[in-house]
């Protein structure tokens, strides 16, 4: 523990590492199913705001807020997912970016909007400044427990019919459909679970950082979440956790170089996607990289070269 602290991993940093691991897993679910959805920050915002309103305005305990936030995001995910998940890759990405922005702007203007509709002065989301003074009630053991339970569910999911169908859809959606898999149902269900997981991270994080504002859930946040999954890799559930840990801890460990933090993030993302496409947690990727460094083309690259020249 002292060792960790000496390199900059204090308790709050560790807690944020756990939160970010959960966020990484939320986008992992959709990516694993072949859906490039970037709606996670929007659902995180919904979870955070609903959760904070429940603990602050209704004096509910954290676990109730957690459930409330998750349910809210799950409910929103249904009408969003049904139309949007018909879209593919870049189109899906753009549509979900749009969704995230609409959520952010609606939260930003919620009070004025609600006031003008109800005719009374509403003060709930408090505009651009957001909600401050939230008590820090999320504890490390709760985060650990939540993460462990999530991972157990994921492991069992992968060994179930449903989980196999997710992987099949990622590889070939049409072939999966003609193997008897209800693609629309699986995609939408996964989307909902991804939203619920993002919302839970939103609730837990809000009660760690003690303030929330709409700006916390913009496009930058989705990019961060995506970076966790890309850095760690999405071939197993371990990838996004490692990605979340590394990208949260690294800036603290390198805090002398604080002004280069953003540059390091950008470089990491670029280098990983270019040289280690499977992410950090992917043995084949490392092997391929090792062969490239030693100057031996891999079997596949040799074949590609042959076919290109032939």
């Amino acid at each position: 523990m002292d060792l960790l602290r000496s390199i900059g991993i204090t308790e709050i940093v560790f807690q944020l590492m756990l939160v970010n691991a959960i966020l990484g897993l939320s986008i992992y679910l959709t990516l694993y199913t072949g859906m490039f959805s970037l709606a996670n920050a929007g659902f995180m915002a919904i979870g955070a705001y609903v959760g904070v309103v429940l603990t602050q305005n209704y004096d509910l305990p954290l676990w109730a807020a957690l459930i409330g936030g998750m349910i809210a995001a799950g409910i929103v995910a249904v009408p969003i997912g049904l139309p949007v998940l018909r879209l593919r890759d870049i189109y899906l990405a753009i549509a979900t970016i749009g969704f995230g922005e609409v959520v952010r702007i609606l939260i930003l203007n919620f009070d004025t909007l609600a006031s003008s509709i109800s005719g009374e002065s509403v003060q709930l989301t408090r505009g651009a400044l957001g909600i401050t003074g939230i008590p820090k009630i999320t504890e490390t053991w709760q985060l650990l427990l939540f993460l462990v339970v999530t991972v157990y569910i994921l492991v069992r999911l992968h060994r179930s019919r449903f989980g196999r169908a997710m992987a099949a859809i990622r590889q070939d959606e049409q072939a999966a459909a003609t193997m008897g898999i209800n693609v629309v149902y699986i995609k939408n269900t996964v989307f909902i679970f991804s939203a619920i997981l993002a919302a839970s991270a939103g609730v837990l994080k809000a009660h760690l950082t003690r303030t929330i504002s709409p700006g916390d859930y913009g496009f930058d946040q989705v990019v961060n979440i995506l970076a966790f999954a890309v850095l760690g890799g999405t071939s197993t559930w371990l990838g996004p956790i490692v990605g979340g840990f590394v990208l949260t801890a690294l800036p603290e460990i390198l805090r002398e170089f604080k002004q280069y933090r953003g540059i390091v993030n950008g470089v990491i993302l670029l280098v990983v996607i270019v040289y280690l496409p499977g992410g950090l947690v992917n043995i084949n990727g490392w092997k391929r990289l090792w062969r490239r460094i030693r100057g031996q083309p891999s079997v596949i690259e040799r074949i590609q070269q042959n076919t290109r020249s032939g």
Partner: protein
Amino acid sequence: MLELKKVSRLFGGLQALHQVDMRVPEGRIVGLIGPNGAGKTTLINNISGLDHPTSGTIHFEGREIHNLPPHRITGLGIARTYQNIRLFGEMTVLENLLISQHGRGRATVFDSLVFTPRFRAEERRLKNVALQLLERFQLGGMAHLLAGNLPYGDQRRLEMARALATGPKLLLLDEPTAGMNPIETEQLGQQILRLRDEQLTVLVIEHDMSLIHQVCDEIYVLNFGQIIAHGAPDVIKHNPQVIEAYLGQEEDTELESERERS
């Protein structure tokens, strides 16, 4: 068993299928032949629900299926293979066969979470079916290899095994012997004949006339989206229209498979 009535499919201005009438009687092996671009794959896509007719009807066991999504059609008992192999390449051979039994399983994620007896029994059952199919298609030792790494001929047989794992009554085979050598083709013919002995109905698209003669009870000939002949293999062979359709046919399989992928 399967009945198509006046099925047409337009792609923009292109008549890929035009007023196709076709019957596949129960327990028979029906061949579908025709030059490249005739619309054979389009026909299979329409039957399996990946594509839907612009007009016309498709009935399976008396039931209208032309508006159903693919998984429902598979659930009713129609399975298919793909001309350009479409296995789940990043998964093992065994997993490919487990996935295609999706519709035959009932266990939920919750069953998996707490290891209910139902879950364990079902996984055992699915695995047994898979292993039997592997034996049957001479893929015995390969259960744990990645499907994408198999040699070509093995991938073709796995395609067929995977379709069978869905538990079909009607099997649609889209050029199952494409790229196979004559010996492999002959063996695959034996497999197809064995299916009929097990009361399966088969619609097979094929270029290889020797295979057609080996297995088919009757043949439909498609050209420019239209059925131009129908009958027993011997009769069809001497049909002047068919001979003409096949003359001047160009083989360009590379372009064709590329187009189908896009």
